């Protein structure tokens, strides 16, 4: 702390509220505030006036593509975290609970507890159904966003470039996926969504895995399961500097490196 005192505090508080203190004075000011919490409300009061400047600029309409891109990322993160939560709570834990109850309680009590668990399982089932519906909704939204971006790209007259720099790359399908239709939609330079439909069905213990391939090798970039309609999945790795995007079949949960030949691929 330098020579910060009440007088200096009064001298600097307006500049602090406006974010206009040089780093050293800002640090000293905050140290003073920490040591004198009674001054906090005074500063907050001035800051609330300074913050009014934020709503004064002339109105500017944000472009629609900004909403599409923000919502695509948010929907993808939301879908991923739901998937992670589901994977983190396997049904086997219910069986383990039943086993523990059976060991711990006499038969009649265990029967009652088991009945309660059945009710719980039913509720869980309802919850999962609702989650599936929500995911369906999110998938539809992603689809709509991609269609909108595709329309934007088509509207410019370019084969694959949108006015906002988006690119749509058709993926080459091989083997069992030869009847599939898949595209990578790259936007904002390095982010992308992969859309696939008519993919072959997979057994429960397998999944499709996306790979972004560059000089350093194949980077795992997301998992997806085939659906009845088109499935949209965010490509989790940046496409910057990448050469290829590919999809392979991997064991459920994904692999650190591809273990099968690509079913889909697109050169960037």
């Amino acid at each position, binding site marked *: 702390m330098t020579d910060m005192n009440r007088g200096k505090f009064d001298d600097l508080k307006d500049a602090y509220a*406006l974010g206009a203190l040089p780093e050293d004075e800002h640090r000293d000011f905050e140290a003073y505030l920490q040591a004198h919490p009674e001054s906090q409300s005074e500063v907050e009061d001035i800051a609330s006036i300074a*913050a009014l400047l934020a709503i004064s600029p002339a109105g500017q309409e*944000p472009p629609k593509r*900004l*909403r599409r891109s923000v919502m695509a990322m*948010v929907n993808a993160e939301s879908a991923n975290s739901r998937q992670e939560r589901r994977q983190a709570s396997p049904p086997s834990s219910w069986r383990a609970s039943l086993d523990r109850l059976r060991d711990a309680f006499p038969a009649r009590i265990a029967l009652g507890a088991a009945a309660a668990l059945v009710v719980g399982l039913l509720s869980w089932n309802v919850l999962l159904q609702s989650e599936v519906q929500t995911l369906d909704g999110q998938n539809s939204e992603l689809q709509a966003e991609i269609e909108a971006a595709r329309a934007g790209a088509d509207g410019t007259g370019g084969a694959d470039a949108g006015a906002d720099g988006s690119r749509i790359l058709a993926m080459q399908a091989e083997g069992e996926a030869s009847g599939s239709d898949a595209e990578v939609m790259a936007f904002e330079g390095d982010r992308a969504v992969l859309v696939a439909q008519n993919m072959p069905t997979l057994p429960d213990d397998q999944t499709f895995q996306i790979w972004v391939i560059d000089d350093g090798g194949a980077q795992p970039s997301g998992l997806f399961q085939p659906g009845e309609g088109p499935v949209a999945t965010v490509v989790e790795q940046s496409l910057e500097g990448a050469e290829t995007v590919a999809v392979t079949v991997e064991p459920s949960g994904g692999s650190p490196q591809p273990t099968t030949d690509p079913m889909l691929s697109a050169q960037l």
Partner: protein
Amino acid sequence: MIEMMADNSKKYLTLADEDLISMVGGEDPDAFAALYDRHSRAAFSLGYRIMGQRQTAEDLVQEVFLKVWRSANSYRAGRGSVRTWILSIVHHRGIDQLRATASRQRTKDRFEASAEKSQPSEAFAETWRNSQRDQVREALKTLPEEQLKILELAYFSGYTHVEISKLMNLPLGTVKGRMRLGLKKMRDYFDSRDVAVPR
């Protein structure tokens, strides 16, 4: 399904920002979309005012809304409205980026042009948000030009008081004094009309 989604959209329209932000904290993308629709215009307007270019303003606003999505749980109602919180993130990140850019486009020319931009020049919409903006603009109109310039240089262009004193060739004490008087005059505008300061 479509009807259900339409009902959901209506439900979000009627919710307060504070309710929406807590739903966003629970990872509800529809609640987030409703918040985005309410505040993206103000966020983009501020971002554009600070960055001076649409593309960089877009990048900034995207970054800010992703932070809102990921950090909704850190919002504290006691420290201001949701809108104030979102705009403060736009402001802090925008100024950080300006300061980090070597070729800061914060020239005198831009500053002088910006003074014009801040003048009210349009018929205002009837929504309460625009009404608040009207009030703030009216409050800013009561400031002498030299005070307004200093507030704008500090708030929108990220200059420190020392930099402003050099830029305007004024003693540091004068810059501090004008900052103080400018902010006080804004407060007086609301006090004299017995109107609560927008939060």
